[in-house]
């Protein structure tokens, strides 16, 4: 059974669902119902198959598993090479998990152009999964950029009042970063004569100066995606205008592409430049952690607040990735997963009340606990997870990052730690404003608690968040071998460069 192309199946199964949706025809009602069901079933099946990956994953191996390799465009030396290791495994799962949740979450809130909506989400899933599995630089780029097309449409067609502005800003910002990465990829391809990533990891030897150029080109792309301060400004706009499910995918998966890119490409391919530029990353990340946390404190729009908190949380991710010790990198990965779950859930929480009241203004709410106890409980768990309460997912990642950072640089750790305090401040403030207090507003008096569908949306995320907080080893163990290899290779490369530099 080893020859079964399970990664391609996970990647392209959603496309089959999308094709089904496209050919569905008939009266409008029926089409919408069928498209929803087809999309949900496809994405759930995809998720179940992706669970197989986890089950069959060999945690003791550091290299790539489930590899598939074929020629694609041999004239350009581009192959179709897929495979996952401990670093990418959980991102694949995260993508396949969040897609059905998004589809379920938009079951009732989306009623215009349902067919196109479902097609866009399924296509998006293909690109996301493909990006995390791609082991060929050109293939990686294709998926990385391809994501922009469905996301542009999702924001622009189903978004809020300023959706056109947000969609364009999102698209052009990310494209601008990415095209520079394309040139870097071409430069690597030119060096090696192939765009295969595994070959590049083994063989790429570049002079320091070139490493720096290429690193900056990759940085332009990934920093925008993460997003790092000061190129984060597209994120609040995109989040606020995107439909709920769009925000979920954006926060849950798309932001991770940047962090993943650093770990998958920048560090292994350009170790010396990574070391050289690490202080830059630290500086920008600390600014992100502190500054955007402060900005989050004064937001009046719930989604905007969570969007800024995302920037702050992703600051931990980049710090962790570039302290380049085992704790740091593991923490960085774990923080990404946790943020993927938690911020996705928080956006869904906003979606729940938005669907009922059609406003995201914090001031429009208050005292919801009296009418919506189940909602209050759910929201609380995720708020606390976001704050980093021990026992929930957010804690593990932040703790590991801080441990790693402390080993590398005390100041970085100290400054980053202030982000935890500020994070607690804005998250709890948001929670208090919305949930606690007297229920005085007339408009809220008739609000209903979560229905069964909504519970079904939140339950998996809630359990997962608890699981990750209570027993993180199930997630950290499969990562360990690959992270060891990443850090080991990096240190070996640095050592080699040092000895080479000695007279």
């Amino acid at each position, binding site marked *: 059974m080893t020859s079964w192309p399970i990664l391609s199946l996970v990647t392209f199964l959603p496309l089959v669902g999308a094709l089904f949706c496209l050919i569905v025809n008939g009266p409008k009602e029926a089409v919408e119902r069928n498209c929803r069901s087809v999309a949900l079933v496809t994405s759930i099946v995809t998720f179940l198959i992706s669970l197989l990956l986890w089950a069959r994953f060999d945690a003791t191996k550091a290299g790539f598993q489930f590899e598939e390799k074929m020629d694609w*465009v041999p004239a350009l030396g581009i192959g179709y090479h897929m495979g996952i290791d401990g670093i990418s495994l959980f991102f694949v799962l995260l993508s396949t998990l969040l897609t059905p949740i998004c589809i379920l979450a938009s079951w009732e809130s989306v009623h215009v152009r349902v067919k196109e909506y479902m097609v866009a989400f399924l296509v998006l899933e293909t690109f996301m999964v493909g990006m995390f599995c791609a082991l060929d630089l050109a293939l990686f780029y*294709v*998926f990385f950029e391809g994501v922009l*097309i469905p996301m542009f*449409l999702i924001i*622009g067609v189903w978004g809020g009042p300023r959706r056109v502005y947000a969609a364009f800003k999102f698209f*052009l910002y990310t*494209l601008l970063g990415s095209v*520079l990465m394309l040139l870097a990829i*071409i430069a690597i391809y030119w060096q090696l004569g192939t765009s295969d990533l595994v070959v590049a990891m083994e063989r790429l030897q570049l002079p320091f100066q070139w490493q720096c150029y290429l690193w900056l080109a990759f940085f332009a792309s990934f920093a925008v995606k993460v997003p790092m301060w000061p190129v984060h400004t597209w994120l609040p706009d995109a989040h606020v205008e995107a439909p709920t499910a769009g925000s979920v995918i954006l926060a849950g998966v798309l932001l991770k592409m940047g962090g993943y890119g650093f770990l998958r490409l920048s560090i292994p391919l350009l170790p010396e430049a990574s070391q050289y530029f690490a202080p830059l990353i630290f500086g920008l990340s600390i600014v992100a952690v502190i500054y955007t946390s402060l900005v989050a404190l004064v937001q009046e729009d719930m989604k905007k607040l969570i969007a800024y908190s995302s920037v702050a949380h992703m600051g931990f991710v980049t710090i962790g990735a570039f302290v380049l010790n085992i704790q740091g990198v593991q923490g960085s990965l774990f923080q990404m997963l946790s943020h993927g779950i938690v911020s996705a859930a928080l956006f869904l929480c906003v979606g729940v009340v938005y669907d009922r009241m059609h406003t995201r203004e914090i001031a429009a709410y208050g005292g919801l606990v009296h009418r919506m106890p189940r909602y209050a409980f759910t929201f609380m768990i995720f708020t606390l997870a976001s704050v980093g309460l021990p026992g929930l997912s957010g804690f593990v990642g932040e703790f590991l990052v801080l441990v790693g950072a402390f080993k590398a640089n005390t100041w970085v750790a100290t400054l980053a730690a202030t982000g935890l305090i500020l994070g607690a401040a804005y998250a709890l403030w948001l929670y208090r404003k919305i949930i606690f207090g007297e229920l005085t507003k007339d408009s809220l008096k008739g609000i209903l608690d979560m229905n069964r569908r909504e519970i079904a949306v939140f339950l998996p995320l809630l359990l997962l968040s608890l699981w990750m907080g209570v027993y993180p080893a199930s997630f950290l163990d499969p990562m360990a071998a690959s992270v060891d290899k990443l850090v080991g290779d990096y240190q070996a490369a640095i050592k080699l460069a040092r000895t080479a530099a000695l007279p």
Partner: protein
Amino acid sequence: MVVGLESWTLARPELFLAAVTALLLIYGVVRGEASTAFVSVSTSLALLVTAVLLFMPYREGTAFASLFIVDRLTTTMKALVLVGAAITVLMSRTYFEDVKAWRFEYPLLVALATLGMMLMISANDLMALYVGLELQSLALYVVAAFQRDSVRSTEAGVKYFVLGSVASGMLLFGASLIYGFCGGTAFVEISKALIDGKGAEVGTVIGLVFVVAGLAFKVSAVPFHMWTPDVYEGAPTPVTALFAVAPKIAAMSLLVSVLMGPFKPLFAQWQQIIVVASVLSMALGAFAALRQQNIKRLMAYSSIGNVGYILLGLASGSEKGIQAVVFYLAIYLVMTLGVFATILLMKRRGVMVEGVNDLAGLARSQPMMAFALLLFMFSLAGIPPLAGFWGKLYIFIAAVEAKLYWPAVLGVLASVVASYYYLRIVKVMYFDEPGEALDQPVFGVNRVVAFAAAVIVAVFSLAPQPLSLVAAAAAKGLFP
């Protein structure tokens, strides 16, 4: 070899096309307007048959005392030109019927222009080059003004004629300088003179600059692009479609075979010119289109930008670069035909409209057409995984390998700017509230072309390999 008629059969496709055109012309004159439909369809068929003749049987060599050359590159380019011309002839019927200019001369003029293009692609001598170029230009001047009771169309024709004549004059002047300094008009002689060092003088370089300028006009590269937006906007839409593909491919092919052929020894000199023209074209194509409201004008700037990318491939001067040029041209042909087929379908209450905003809400009234246009736009913007991305990737690979780093960086940045206006069309179709709906298109050639182009773009997106093999084979012709 003196008479040069030994291998005249190499020009079989051209002779066939010329003969058929002459016969159809006589038929048209005898039968009058009634013959238009027949002449039009026959011309398209003749063009396609000519394309088949190129390959059956395929032979290489030179003919007519080495005035005429056939190799993989010329054959591929001719095939692209013929397909482009044949399809645009088919696409034009409804348009000309609507404006009451449906006359049999139109397809025949296109056929003659195509014949000129084939001659210039196959030119192996400055004289042959000029004759071919003028044959295509003269026919195209008339075609641009074909809707003769429309002020815009006649203005476009006159503009094209005046500026085109200037360009031809420059080219001729350059050719005469080259002849003077190299002692011959045949490409072989020029090449030999340059390699010997005999002709490598300032005069030759000046002549080369004039020739390049004349050809740059034909491909509408900056700074010789001024005619493009006006002519594209003014000419009847099917003619614009023709202009956007066939003459451009032919002139680009000519530019490649002139620069990579006899003037290869002067690579260092012409590379600078081409790089500058390329970067300026990419930049102008990107920035000037940002605020265009007329979709034909927008496509004019888009084509200027695309020419910039193609020139970057040429500027790399490598085999990969020429492959990239062929590859890009083929994809460009498909995308452009698709876009113009959709533009030709834009009608409101029976009248053609061409504003970008007329597309508002198209995604709801005509989802299929909107989706096809969406594919073309993302593809033109070079967003992976669509076909246009592979074209750009090919070009940039060639550019980086030739160490043209800065032009490559500027090129990708220009592509980001350009993506804005392609996205704007998507935005108008998908995000905006529908205005007054466009007419539901009737089933016809244009729908078929748009659909076929969308399918081909999709196929190229997923499987670019076959096309890259064709491009590789074509480029072999220049690098034996």
